[in-house]
């Protein structure tokens, strides 16, 4: 057939089909969120309260952790002594506090929340 104008072939259309399918299948970018920052703020709040009121016993620290973070797992480390709470995960948000008590003894507390 002799004619003027654009006459798309099936091969070209199939190529366009494949190209569009590849473009549509690209994963969506993750929306930025502030959840990690909120967890970090709560960690800082808890450690600030412990520092001001006096570092409690480890069982009370565990109880405070569960109250603050609910069902999330975590870890409390006091001067090297580690206590695990709840389920573990590879992703975590951690905060550390160094402070001096009334006897000028240095104490280090690391609070970790698993995501």
């Amino acid at each position, binding site marked *: 057939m002799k004619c003027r104008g654009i006459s798309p072939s099936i091969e070209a259309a199939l190529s*366009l089909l494949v190209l569009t399918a590849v473009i549509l299948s690209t994963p969506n970018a993750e*929306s*930025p969120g502030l959840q990690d920052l909120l967890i970090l703020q709560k960690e800082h709040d808890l450690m600030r*309260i412990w520092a*001001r009121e006096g570092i409690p016993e480890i069982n009370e620290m565990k109880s405070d952790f569960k109250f603050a973070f609910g069902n999330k797992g975590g870890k409390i480390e006091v001067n090297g002594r580690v206590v695990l709470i709840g389920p573990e995960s590879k992703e975590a948000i951690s905060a550390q506090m160094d402070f001096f008590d009334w006897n000028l003894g240095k104490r280090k507390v690391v609070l970790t929340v698993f995501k």
Partner: protein
Amino acid sequence: MNTTNRGFAFSLDTAFSSLLIFAMLFLATSHFNTESETALKSVKEFGLWKNGLFVADSLVKNRSENKILGAASFDEGKRRVMENKLELIDIQGVTGIDSNEFFVKNISISFKNGRKEVVEISEKNAESCISVERIVTVENEIGLLGVVVCEM
């Protein structure tokens, strides 16, 4: 393209190819439309979380006449604001905030013994609300402060 006195006469594979092309164009434009709507929605949501975070942070870290902007206790002896230490009477005195973007719906404090104090600030209804939690001490007891912020 052949034309006859009856009208246009396409070849079959041209018609089929054209159909495929138009279908792909349609899918691509609807995909981009969905993407842009999702992006706009996530920007709005991010803005609401940002505002909620700032309000809650200001509430627990500062002291202000407008209690929503600062309800932390003031230590007269040390002459400084005690961050994350609140008084119940200050929480109960919290009023709303002037903003065209968001409003504070309520503030609550939950204690370990199950007690919960809720202060309703606005009765407006909103489709999109978020809750920001902070840890505070109230009357020497550890509590979970919740600030619910909604989109205007």
